[in-house]
């Protein structure tokens, strides 16, 4: 097997917190640790889905992967460049072969810039492009099924679905190895969602680009991903091939997520609230909401361990014969 295109190793991300006076007086925590220790890899040409509730740190992980979050430990490797901090010089190279699609497509386009300029901006930043920028814009827009005259429009003149396509075109401008797509289907109605997912799949086949696909939507993830990593409170709690996640989930949180998707009624995802990032539970962090929680869970945090080849989960009771899971 070839080397993964993206590899996060023991990545830790924390944001400074509290006011300046609080920090000077030593009151309260100085940081909020969003990602305590995350390791993750995306294979070349594959799509990894990053799933979690809002606040699970999936967006932060996506941003950290392109150097937009304060990394305080561990490393991000893309290709052969490894960065260990937010202002590492390696990001310039990494950003040239990685691109990001933001959750809010319209907001991620400069309102005062024509779409043609926006789409070709990565080329202008990277430098070394000496072709005709208008032709290139038309070509990129064509790639995502938009006519060339979109190049002269402004973001507020197009629909949400069209804006999404424009951001896809921009993400592919430099023919990257990896695209980090943060909720690319957010705010789109179902038919447009389908079109977009087909487009992404088609472009992946044609260009061989890898995707880190961040979403909370399991149905979407099921269709487009090869592997899925489930996040809870900034940690990956289970990771497996997509099929396995749906057929044989091992972590109670994964089961709850899948159960919630299949349940027809309304109601919350699972019982209880997500604990605060500043007051993480002792032991297993999911135990406050876990139906299986025992004394062991309160005493000892479960490690992320391999249950089957290519399938990891962090639960003391994962991988055990059935019985425990349905108590």
């Amino acid at each position, binding site marked *: 097997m070839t080397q993964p295109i993206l590899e996060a190793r023991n990545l830790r991300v924390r944001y400074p917190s509290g006011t300046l006076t609080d920090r000077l007086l030593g009151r309260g925590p100085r940081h909020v640790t969003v990602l305590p220790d995350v390791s993750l890899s995306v294979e070349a040409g594959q799509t990894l889905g990053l799933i979690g509730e809002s606040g699970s740190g999936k967006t932060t992980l996506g941003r950290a992967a*392109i*150097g*937009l979050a304060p990394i305080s430990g561990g490393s991000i490797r893309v290709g052969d460049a490894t960065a260990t901090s937010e202002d590492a010089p390696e*990001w*310039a190279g990494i*950003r*040239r072969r990685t*691109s*990001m699609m*933001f*959750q*809010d497509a319209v*907001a*991620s*386009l*400069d*309102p*005062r*810039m*024509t779409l043609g300029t926006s789409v070709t*901006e*990565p080329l202008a*930043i*990277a430098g070394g492009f000496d072709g005709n920028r208008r032709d290139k814009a038309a070509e990129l827009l064509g790639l995502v099924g938009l*006519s*060339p*005259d979109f*190049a*002269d*429009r*402004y973001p*507020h*003149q*197009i*629909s949400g679905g*069209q804006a999404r396509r424009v951001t896809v075109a921009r993400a592919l401008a430099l023919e990257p190895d990896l695209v980090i797509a943060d909720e690319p289907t957010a705010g789109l109605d179902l038919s447009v969602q389908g079109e977009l997912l087909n487009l992404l799949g088609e472009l992946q086949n044609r260009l061989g680009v890898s995707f880190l696909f961040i979403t909370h939507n399991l149905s979407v993830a099921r269709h487009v991903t090869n592997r899925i990593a489930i996040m809870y409170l900034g940690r990956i709690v289970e990771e497996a091939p997509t099929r396995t996640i749906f057929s044989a989930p091992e972590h109670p949180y994964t089961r709850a997520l899948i159960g919630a998707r299949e349940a027809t009624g309304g109601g919350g995802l699972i019982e209880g609230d997500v604990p605060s990032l500043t007051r993480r539970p002792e032991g297993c962090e999911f135990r406050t909401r876990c139906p299986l929680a025992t004394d062991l869970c309160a005493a000892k945090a479960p490690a992320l361990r391999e249950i089957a080849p290519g399938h990891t989960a962090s639960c003391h009771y994962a991988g055990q014969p059935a019985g425990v899971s349905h108590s």
Partner: protein
Amino acid sequence: MTDQTAAAPRAVKAERHATLRRLLGTPTGAVASLVVAAFVIAALAAPLVAPYDPNAIDPINRMQGPSAAHWLGTDQLGRDLLSRIVFGTRTALYIALTGTGAALGVGMAMGMIAGLGGKILDSALVLLNDSIKSLPLVLFALALVTIYGASVPALIVIIAISMAPGYFRVVRNQVLVLNNADFIVAAQSMGASRLRLAATHMLPNLIGPILVLIAMDIPAVIGIESGLSFLGQGIQPPQSSWGNMLSEGYTYVRQAPHIAIAAGLPIVLSTIAFTFLGETLRDALDPRRAVRT
């Protein structure tokens, strides 16, 4: 909503036309634009517009009320008031534009540096600007004039220093908001340098609020100039300025009230016109309003 076959460059032009239409479409916007245009023309073409030499003394016809020969009457030396106002417009707008321009340059540079340059620099610049803002303007101006003497350059420096914090604040706040805007973060994710962020993404998005502030500031600057000239610390006679005309008229307000009234008229008129222009400009430039047309 979008017509895919629309000729593309036309869309851009239509966008600009739409802004102009929204500006001139409202009665206040149209009237304000007209009045401002009249002041600008008066200033640029003063020798052509003014019926008399503004400094020509005619003692026989002094302190006369409005008449066919002198539309606004004459002052205590028999000079034509309309001509003096027209030339005063030149002074007023010259100082307003250079003063505001200098304030804009200084304020914007500081605002950009504060917004993009990290916490310590930001705090230092905020402190500096708040300190300037806390100075009583008139005392500050009088102190400077006492030291350096009353002159046009001194006036411009006073205006630049006192107005810069306004631009600083608007630019800094806008930059801080933009720092977290998705399209700025997106440009960062593409590897854009800070300089590129500032020049290609921040600046174009700052122009709207800045234009509005300029339109709103011009009457304030005219007020400062008039006020200092009224106190005898601004434009020195015989060069005409609305402020020193008002001051002279004030002396003779019992015998010939029309002098003070004539001098006050352009101050009031320009203040109202520029303020309304600024307000309609703010509405016309709002991109969210553009969506609805």
